[in-house]
């Protein structure tokens, strides 16, 4: 993965920069010791590391604005960072950049149950947003699997999803307003407690812009009343095709499950060895969850069961209790841990049209033989968001590169069948160089035009999202 050479002129200005930042931030909010900046040298894509020039941890929107204005004036790149859980290298520093961490911005500013929103500072973790409202029976819907650790700032930057977005949507569908600071220090409000901001949908534009357009310090989020209950059904099939057809039939029948999860045989076996959830030994397994009152759940599950029976399932297990639900979810929730127990793995995130599931799974199987690397599939089938997990050995020379090559081929396949490179993890550096497979030069130019408007000097989160050769002239301008 190529990153631009650090700019020696910026490295040479470090002392002045640090002094100026210390002038606007508390002393302990400016970190320059290499022993301490090392904690920020990578995110959850640990294959790539680079200590930043400095780390700042502002405690208010004003401090963010002051610090950004200084960096802007001195021409220093800034890498915004939530909790550092990005799987795509979205928070990877460059040696000549300042990391701006939002960890000290973690307060709840306002909760309003009549109008169903919460306003928080964006360093707050995803799960603790729900934590702040659940005693009133409410929750915040987007639930990325890193929700215990990941920050709302990162959720907004990456437009994070989760297992329940089939029904509730992703971050952009649940974000009502933000306070945002531009690279030059300008503070602005977009949206708020009302629906639909005036003018262009800039809120929609900045959500998923990977921290390249501005630093979001506060967010107004839609909260929802928790459903009365939820229960899953587990269905095993002897072929991926049949499981795929069953998913399509469930959707066509007019049931809208809150989640439809899919696991293939390698994944079922690995999680069975690890978690012993009692899954059937079959080719494909679906977990379909529905919500409502007990009677409503029974009615929906009966309908789903009727559809599934037409596809000759090898196993069909309806949950009747919280305990049985937990057992059904156990294997799915331990899938990543189970894979990690076997070997190092790389988790992909391509999305495909649901109708292409069987074809794509078959091709991934063929490629697995060709590359000599095992792959297990676990994903959100209702919306076609795949998470192939490629196993490799980080200690074996060349294995990581082989794995990356395999991963790139899978993502190209996703695009080829009408899908996209990333459904919820983001481009970051990981998929940066694959962007030209999905977008033509004019498509990328239009996106980079937006960057030009928000951050004309291209200082925010540099060298991500766009292939370097396509962004070179703009970054140099």
């Amino acid at each position, binding site marked *: 993965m190529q990153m631009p050479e650090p700019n020696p002129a910026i490295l040479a200005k470090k002392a002045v920069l640090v002094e100026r930042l210390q002038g606007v931030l508390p002393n302990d909010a400016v970190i320059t010791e290499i022993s301490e900046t090392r904690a920020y040298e990578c995110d959850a894509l640990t294959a790539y590391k680079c200590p930043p020039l400095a780390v700042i941890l502002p405690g208010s929107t004003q401090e963010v604005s002051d610090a950004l204005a200084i960096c802007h004036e001195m021409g220093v790149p800034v890498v915004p960072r939530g909790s550092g859980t990005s799987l795509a290298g979205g928070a990877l520093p460059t040696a000549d950049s300042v990391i701006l961490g939002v960890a000290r911005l973690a307060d709840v500013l306002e909760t309003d149950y009549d109008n169903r929103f919460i306003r928080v500072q964006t360093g707050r973790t995803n799960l603790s947003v729900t934590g702040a409202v659940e005693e009133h029976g409410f929750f915040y819907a987007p639930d990325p699997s890193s929700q215990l650790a990941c920050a709302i700032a990162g959720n907004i930057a990456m437009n994070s999803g989760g297992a329940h977005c089939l029904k509730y949507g992703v971050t952009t569908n649940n974000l009502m307003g933000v306070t945002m600071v531009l690279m030059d220090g300008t503070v602005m409000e977009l949206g708020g407690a009302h629906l639909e901001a005036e003018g262009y949908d800039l809120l929609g534009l900045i959500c998923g812009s990977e921290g390249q357009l501005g630093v979001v310090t506060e967010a107004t989020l839609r909260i929802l009343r928790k459903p009365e209950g939820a229960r899953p059904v587990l269905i095993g099939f002897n072929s991926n095709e049949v499981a795929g057809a069953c998913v399509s039939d469930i959707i066509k029948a007019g049931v809208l499950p809150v989640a439809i999860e899919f696991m293939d045989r390698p994944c079922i076996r690995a999680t069975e060895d690890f978690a012993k959830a009692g899954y059937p030994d079959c080719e494909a397994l679906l977990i379909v969850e529905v919500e409502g009152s007990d009677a409503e759940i029974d*009615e929906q599950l009966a309908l789903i069961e009727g559809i599934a029976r037409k596809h000759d399932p090898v196993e069909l297990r309806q949950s009747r209790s919280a305990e049985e639900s937990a057992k059904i979810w156990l294997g799915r929730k331990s899938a990543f841990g189970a894979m990690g127990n076997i070997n190092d793995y790389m988790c992909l995130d391509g999305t495909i049209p649901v109708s292409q599931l069987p074809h794509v799974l078959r091709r991934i199987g063929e490629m697995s033989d060709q590359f000599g690397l095992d792959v297990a599939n676990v994903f959100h089938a209702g919306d076609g968001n795949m998470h192939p997990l490629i196993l490799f050995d980080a200690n074996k020379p060349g294995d990581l590169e082989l794995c990356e090559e395999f991963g790139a081929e899978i993502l190209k396949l996703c695009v080829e069948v009408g899908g996209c490179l990333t459904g919820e993890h983001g481009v970051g550096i990981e998929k940066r160089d694959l962007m030209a497979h999905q977008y033509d030069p004019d498509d990328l130019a239009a996106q980079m035009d937006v960057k030009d408007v928000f951050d004309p000097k291209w200082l925010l989160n540099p060298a991500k999202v766009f292939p370097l050769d396509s962004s070179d002239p703009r970054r140099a301008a």
Partner: protein
Amino acid sequence: MTPKTEAELAEIISGTEGPLRIEGGGTRPLGRVSNGARLSTSGLTGIELYEPGAMTLVAKAGTPLAEIVAALEAEGQRLAFEPMDHRGLLGTDGTPTIGGVVAANVSGPRRIQAGACRDFLLGVRFVDGQGRVVKNGGRVMKNVTGYDLVKLMAGSYGTLGVLTEVALKVLPRPRSSGMLLSEGLRDDRAITALSHALGSPYEVTGAAHLQRGQDGAPVTMIRLEGFENSVAYRAGELQSLLAGFGRFTLETDPAVTEAAWHHVRDVGPFHGREGDVWRISVKPTDAPGIVADLAGTEALYDWGGGLIWLLAPDGSGVNAARLRAAVAARGGHAMLIRGDRSRATFAPLPAPVAALQEGLRQKFDPRQILNPGLMAQGETA
């Protein structure tokens, strides 16, 4: 000009020198009247792809909305954001197109629960003001590959580019629907009742209050959709929950329910009546206070109060300045939907937001030929 292909459209835009007035079916003439040459997308028609099992539909921008609705109905599906038909309110005729719906980000009562048009928009193709053909997003439901220009295009009224194709997420039609009705509630009581309903676990898909219902009295409406048993169950639970607000009766005839919500969606109470019509987006609990400040007007509250449709008759003394001040005092914005189009239609923007908007416009339409004046800061001055 009515190009038949995207390439032809791109050629027209590249080759033109004067301003262009972009139109779908011409049923939603909003904002400043442009003196540009008419450029219609109505020649770009056809459903390109429809996969009911994947809940995805892709259509060319000029495809009549009715054609899409019919195709979806045949498979038991629908556009869940329930786009409004502006013809009755604006007194226009013509054929609404899907591109027009997207360009104006048109949603209806279900927006409060399911989301707006922009939330269901998966991908777009458009030709920008430089004649550049751009695609963004795609046809899959989860996609974070690059910047989200899909959202930017929704509601940009053809000022950044001319849409040529849109991809939408569609949803199953529920098997049954019903609504709870209560007559005679005061505005503030009604909005409080709607807040209770929307804050319940009973999945309300419509929450409106009409100051003047069909028989003249105020009516408060709550819609439920789903399986028949489930609708009945949730209606019962809501009746208990709202017992303190008076009697809510249950209407179970789906045809009556559908007609009533079309009436709300299309702002039926204001059809054929004199006066300006404003569309005001606010925090729901602020809505009754704003309306009370604007005496002499009539209101239809949708989205549990979050959307106010306001009729300001000529004699009411409610002008743009007074109305915008009442809204701004509490947070939110107002758009003039029907009235003197030489006046400000769109809400004025704070300076830094306006600067970004103008910057984007410069990039996508440097010659300022696409609907010039519309949504511009000059327009809102």
